[in-house]
Structures are given as structure tokens and as C-alpha cells.
């Protein structure tokens, strides 16, 4: 018992371990060839170690020869498999060098196994002359054979040299292809240990070194170097996996924090995968199988068609999918869900995937609806208050036709008492009465339309007509306040798209504001002008110009803020609502101070029949 009987089995065990590891990985992970070849090399190195140990233990010549021949085979398999491994792993190298290794080695091996080879001769020795017991470090003893060297024993060494040449060549190529320092380190280590192994064997065989064969040690070192190289990829993969896990965790956290549900739909098999959050939003249980029909069935009936169409569109154009739909809840409430996703072409174009997120937007929707309702109420309130201001003026306007009708009927009664009655005059009276009745009706219609609360309804309309009807509404007020109210509508004015009631509201508001502005001027200088003209391409501009004191520069920017007012009894909502209305029409509204006197409020409206640029 000495350290050698421990060391060599340990080398063999280390090789076996490395081989088993790579075999295990190689069986499960592609590409398989490099790892399986590595495992084969490792197992043969283990065999070599075992044979080396057996050789140093035997003292029977016949047994020694048998072991020696087995060792030669094992080394051959080891060289070739290592060669093949490096070749497949590096992915380049000269093929003739690859072929030269087994060829050269096989030639040498012929001396061991060719029929007719003398019993006492082989690849290494022509004849063995003696066994002797040698002693080496630590007093360990071993058997060593002495004999006549076979000159053909140069062949296996040439095979090793071919291998070294191949590795060097392959490493240089790898480096040139952009491998960095890795090929230099790996190739360098392999070549170094090849040299070590070959040199040690040569020294032992020539009797210059008094040790047993230690080929397996050198090759263990090669295996370790290659194993490190091989598993760098595995380690990188493991790192990647942990990063992936980390990013998955982050994704989970983000989606949980944002209350997002994630889903994937395999179009081919019509199967949805969804996170529990996503399932909960639709009321699906954790294990329930979801397909397209089940998904659509969970939606509000009114939204099914549009959602299905959005899916079809996304699939047809392979573009994004962005919809909002309602999901009725058991307690007869409605959940609003915003869904976004994209189509992904599956591997090899066979199966298409849709992947995306769902978000419960009920709160947002409710807030929006509430805001809309509030805004509508506010607009209504302001309209009512504005109408209140104008009630007097309207009464005046209404009193004209009503008074005329009364006077005409009274006159008609008097005419009827004449003998004969003047029928022509009576006919003229009736025509006038009808005309005045229509006038009165129109005034009432305008008032009613102004008071009714409704949503915006765009239609082509003539701004000159709107200006005239607003001027009619404001005229009474203008007269009472001694304001000269003028209208100037360009004759070639195109129609605009607008809601007549809302536009009248804006115009009235601006006109009344303008009249307020000129109130403090002397009566002769109170002027308000409503003007409409073309503005650039496809727009009409309306300007309400006053001759008042103008707007203080620091107030210009704030005028449209809700509840900002410069009037003692103003609410500060007229302009805010005006802006909302104009922007809903696709126009802009802005104030400016005139060069001479007063201020002008301008707004633009898109011309009817012209495509909106935005």
C-alpha cells in the first residue's frame, strides 16, 4: 500500500465524475455531440488511469503485455474521442489533421495486434528484458518493465503532434472568428497538457524518468480545462435562468402592483393562458378552460361584436390589439376592462399567438362618466344663467311679433265693421299675422334649444346665419346698454361643422363679455363686432372684437381657467365652457389685445367636408 494506489484511482474517479456530469447534461441538452464525446474521453481517461495502476502493480510478463496492449487501445480511444470532441466543440479545424490522428495511431497499434506479431513484442517494445521494482517519491514502490524500444513507437507520438497541431490551428481560427481570449486559454491549456502527457510517456519509455506512466494525469488536466470551458456555457445558462427568474418576479411584481392581468392566446389550439388576476377580472375560475367563445361569452353582449372584430383585425393585420369592453358582474354591476395585446407569429409560422394584458378601468371610466356628467351639468347651468341674463332681451324680442299680432287683429276687427269691409287690407293683415307668429315661434324655439341639455351634434351650418341669430338674441341687451353691435360675415364663407346650439352659446357668451367690456366706455365708443372669415386651409375664423379697455397681459393666459373671473358677479365658467365646446368641435379659441383699442376673442372651426388634419 502506497500513495500511488490512492492517487491513480482518484484520477480515475475524478475522470468518471466529470464524464458522468457531462453525460448527464449531454443526454438532455442540445447539442449533444460535444458533451457525449467529452464523456467518452473522460471514461477512457479513467480506463487509462486504471490500466496505468495495473501496469505498475503486475510482475507477470504475459499479464504486463496484455495490460500494455489494452492501455494502447485506451490511449487511442482517448486521443480520438478527445480529438472529435474538440473538433465538434470548436466547430472548425483542418479535417486532414483530424483524420491524421486516428490514422497514425492505428498504424502504431498494428504492431500490438497484427496477426503474426511476435508474442513478446508490441508497439512500445520489441521485447521486454526485465522487470524491476523502482522506488519514487515518498518511498512508494512500483514495477517497471525494461526492454528494446520499437522504432515504430514514434507513430503514436506523431498522432499526438498532429493533435497538437490541430488544436493550435483550430484555436487560432476560433480566435480570428472573434472568440476573444477564450480560444487562446483553452487551446493553450490543451496543447500544454498534451505536451506534458506525451513528454512524460516518452521519458518513461526511454527509461530517462524513473516513474510509472502518468498519461492519465495530463489528460485529467485537459479534461478539467475542457470541462471548465464547457460548463462556462452551463453557468452562463444558469445565470441567465436566474436572471430570467428575477425578471419574471419583477414582471409579477409590476403586474400585481399595476393590477394588470396577463394573458396569452394560442390561436391554433384556441386556448387561453391567463394569470389568476386576469381570470378573476372575468370571473373565470383558476382551472377553467378558456377559449374564444368562453371569453366572448363573458363580455357584455353589446361589446362582443366589436371585440371580436378587433381580434380579427389584429390577426389579419398582425398589429396591435387595443380595446375596452364591459364585463357584467353577478351583482348586476359592470366592470370596464381595457385590453391591449399584440400578435406573435409562432415558431416556423405554424401557430400564432396573441399576448397581452388586461386592466380593470372601471374606476377610471366611472370618473370619466362622472366628469362628463358634471361638465354637462355645469354647461347647462351656465347656459341657464346666461339665458337668465337674456330673458329680458328675449321678452322684448318676443313682444314685438306678439304686439304686432295683437294690433293687427284689433285693426282687422275695425276693418270688418266697415261696410263693405276692405278685403285686400284684411288679407294683408292675415299675411302679416302669420309672419309675426312664425317670428315668435322662432324666438321660442331658440330659447328652448338653448335651455335643453344635450350632447354635441355636429352638422354643416352657415356661420353667417348663426352670427345673425346670436346678434338677434343679444340685440336687446345691446340696445339697453347702448352698444353698437355689428356683424360682418364674408360673402364667400364656407359651411362649418358645428352644433348650432353650442356655437350660439359660445358666440353669445363672447358677445355678452364684449358688451361687459365696453360698458365703462362713453356711449359713442361702445362697439362690439362679430366677424367671420376664412382662416387658412379648411377653417373659418370667428372674431368677437370689442372697443373696451383690453385685457391685462397677466390675465391673458388665465382667462380660460375654470372659475377665473374678473367680474364682480361672474362665475368664471363661461370662457372655460366656451373653450371646451370649441375644442370639441376641433377648433381653437384664443384672446388677443387689439393694436388700437379693446380686445378680440377668436376661434376657429373646421370647414364642412374637409378632412380633419389631426
Amino acid at each position, binding site marked *: 500500500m502506497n500513495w500511488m494506489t490512492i492517487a491513480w484511482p482518484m484520477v480515475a474517479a475524478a475522470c468518471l465524475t466529470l464524464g458522468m456530469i457531462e453525460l448527464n447534461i449531454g443526454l438532455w441538452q442540445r447539442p449533444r455531440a460535444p458533451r457525449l464525446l467529452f464523456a467518452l474521453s473522460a471514461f477512457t481517461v479513467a480506463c487509462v488511469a486504471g490500466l496505468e495502476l495495473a501496469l505498475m502493480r503486475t510482475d507477470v510478463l504475459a499479464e504486463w503485455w496484455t495490460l500494455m496492449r489494452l492501455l494502447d487501445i485506451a490511449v487511442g480511444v482517448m486521443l480520438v474521442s478527445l480529438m472529435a470532441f474538440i473538433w465538434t466543440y470548436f466547430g472548425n479545424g483542418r479535417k486532414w489533421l483530424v483524420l491524421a490522428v486516428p490514422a497514425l495511431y492505428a498504424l502504431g497499434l498494428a504492431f500490438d495486434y497484427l496477426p503474426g506479431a511476435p508474442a513478446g513484442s508490441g508497439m512500445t517494445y520489441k521485447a521486454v528484458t526485465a522487470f524491476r521494482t523502482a522506488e519514487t517519491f515518498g518511498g512508494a514502490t512500483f514495477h517497471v518493465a525494461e526492454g528494446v524500444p520499437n522504432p515504430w513507437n514514434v507513430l503514436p507520438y506523431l498522432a499526438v503532434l498532429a493533435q497538437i497541431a490541430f488544436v493550435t490551428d483550430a484555436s487560432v481560427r476560433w480566435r480570428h472568428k472573434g472568440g476573444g481570449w477564450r480560444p487562446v486559454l483553452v487551446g493553450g491549456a490543451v496543447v500544454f497538457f498534451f505536451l506534458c502527457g506525451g513528454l512524460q510517456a516518452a521519458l518513461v519509455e526511454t527509461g530517462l524518468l524513473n516513474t510509472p506512466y502518468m498519461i492519465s494525469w495530463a489528460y485529467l488536466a485537459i479534461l478539467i480545462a475542457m470541462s471548465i470551458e464547457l460548463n462556462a456555457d452551463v453557468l452562463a445558462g444558469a445565470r441567465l435562468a436566474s436572471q430570467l427568474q428575477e425578471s419574471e418576479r419583477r414582471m409579477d411584481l409590476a403586474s400585481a402592483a399595476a393590477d394588470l392581468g396577463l394573458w396569452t392566446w394560442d390561436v391554433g389550439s384556441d386556448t387561453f393562458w391567463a394569470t389568476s388576476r386576469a381570470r378573476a377580472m372575468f370571473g373565470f375560475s383558476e382551472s377553467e378552460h378558456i377559449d374564444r367563445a368562453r371569453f366572448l361569452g363573458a363580455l357584455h353582449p353589446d361589446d362582443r361584436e366589436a371585440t371580436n372584430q378587433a381580434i380579427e383585425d389584429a390577426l389579419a393585420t398582425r398589429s396591435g390589439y387595443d380595446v375596452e369592453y364591459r364585463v357584467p358582474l353577478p351583482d348586476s354591476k359592470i366592470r370596464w376592462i381595457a385590453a391591449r395585446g399584440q400578435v406573435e407569429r409562432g415558431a416556423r409560422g405554424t401557430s400564432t399567438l396573441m399576448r397581452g394584458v388586461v386592466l380593470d378601468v372601471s374606476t377610471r371610466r366611472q370618473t370619466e362618466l362622472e366628469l362628463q356628467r358634471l361638465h354637462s351639468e355645469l354647461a347647462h347651468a351656465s347656459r341657464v344663467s346666461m339665458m337668465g341674463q337674456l330673458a329680458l332681451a328675449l321678452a322684448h324680442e318676443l313682444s*314685438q311679433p306678439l304686439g304686432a299680432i295683437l294690433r*293687427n287683429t284689433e*285693426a282687422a276687427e275695425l276693418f270688418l265693421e266697415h261696410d263693405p269691409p276692405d278685403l285686400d287690407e284684411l288679407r294683408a293683415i292675415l299675411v*302679416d299675422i302669420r*309672419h*309675426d307668429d312664425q*317670428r315668435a315661434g322662432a324666438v321660442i324655439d331658440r330659447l328652448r334649444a338653448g335651455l335643453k341639455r344635450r350632447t354635441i351634434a355636429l352638422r354643416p351650418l352657415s356661420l353667417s346665419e348663426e352670427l345673425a341669430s346670436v346678434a338677434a338674441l343679444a340685440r336687446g341687451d345691446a340696445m339697453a346698454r347702448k352698444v353698437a353691435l355689428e356683424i360682418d360675415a364674408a360673402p364667400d364663407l364656407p359651411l362649418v361643422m358645428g352644433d348650432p346650439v353650442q356655437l350660439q352659446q359660445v358666440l353669445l357668451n363672447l358677445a355678452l363679455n364684449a358688451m361687459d367690456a365696453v360698458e365703462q366706455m362713453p356711449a359713442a365708443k361702445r362697439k362690439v363686432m362679430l366677424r367671420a372669415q376664412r382662416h387658412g386651409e379648411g377653417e373659418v375664423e370667428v372674431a368677437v372684437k370689442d372697443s373696451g379697455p383690453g385685457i391685462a397681459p397677466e390675465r391673458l393666459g388665465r382667462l380660460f381657467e375654470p372659475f377665473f373671473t374678473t367680474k364682480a358677479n361672474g362665475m368664471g365658467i363661461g370662457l372655460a365652457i366656451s373653450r371646451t365646446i370649441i375644442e370639441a368641435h376641433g377648433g381653437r379659441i384664443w384672446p388677443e389685445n387689439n393694436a388700437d383699442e379693446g380686445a378680440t376673442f377668436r376661434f376657429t372651426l373646421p370647414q364642412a367636408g374637409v378632412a380633419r388634419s389631426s
Partner: protein
Amino acid sequence: MPVVHVVDDDASFLVALERLLKASGYVVQTYASAADFLAKLGDGAGCVITDLRMPGMDGLDLQQALARRVNMVPVVFLSGAGDIPTTVQAMRRGAEDFLTKDAPKEAIFAAVDRAIARDARQRAENAHLQALRARFDALTSRELEILRHVVAGQMNKQIAADLGINERTVKLHRTAITTKLEVHSVAELTRVAQAVGLLDEPLPTFPKGK
């Protein structure tokens, strides 16, 4: 024949009112604006019915412009909806009536008649005053001086003492005065003197015994 002038910017109402008034036997002139009316207004008898709210010169402006004339034409306002301050202002400035446009025709006729009557009365008063003034113009300065003392209530003796003349001379002057002014009593004399505004002037005073 007194003329009813109608001023209203609403053509339809103007025509209707014109028809009604004409059918009731009034002579009517219509004007679409106050300025138009003022430009064409002559010196004839009549009254004006005007709308309160009109572009340019409104009803109250028209009333003011008319007030500056010698013969103030009575104004009847016929408004769509008059607010209280405007109505008060109009009435204070002497508007004959303030009616709404839907007032019954009888109310309008009554207002017009009142206005025309007032115009006639004013015209008659003016004519009478004119005649009185002519008679006063015939008095000598001495007679005018004595007249002032008479209407102040002084006896002949006092007047004679104040003016330093004979009491008999005073009597002669008084006879001339009553003859020229065509009055028969001191009371009547006082009334006409008041009508022409003689009583508004202070009695000339002289230091006694000088």
C-alpha cells in the same frame, strides 16, 4: 287735424299699429327711427308713440330731444318690457303714458287721446300767453312800474308816496293799465301778471323819504 307720429324699429309692429290707428280714424305718420322722426317733425299738432328700445337713439333720448323744443310734443311710450327704473325716469320727464306693447287698444287710444288733448291744451295756453304778452308789451315803463306795485297789493296812496307822484296820477295810470290789458278787477290783473311771469321779479325798492 292732429297727427299721431309712431316711431318703432320693428317694421311689422309699425305697420300693424298704423293700421289700427288709421282704422280708428287717426292721422298717422310712421318712422323707423327716432332720428328720422326728429328730422321730419314740423310744428303741427299731435303726439308721438315711441318704442323704448331702439338702435341708435332710443325712446328716452327722443323724449329728451323733444323737451328742448318750444312746443313739446307729448310722448307715449309703447315698450316690449319696460323695467321699473326706465319707466320712472320716463314718467318723471313728463311722458304722457307708459304702455306695454300688448296693452288693449282702448288703453292705447285713451293714451293717444289724452296726449292729443294735452297738446291742444298746451297749444291753446301758448296762444293765450302770446296774446297777453302782446298786451303787456303795450304798457309804458311807468305803467309797468305802477302795475308791479298794484299786484304787490299796495294802495294808490302808498304807490304815490313811494314813487313821489300825485295820487291822482296813479289813478290815471291804473285806468290806462286795465284798459290796455283788458281786465276788470285787481284779481284778474294779478292773474295775468302772474301768467306772464311778472310776479317772479322782485319789487323795486327805494329808500323811504328820499
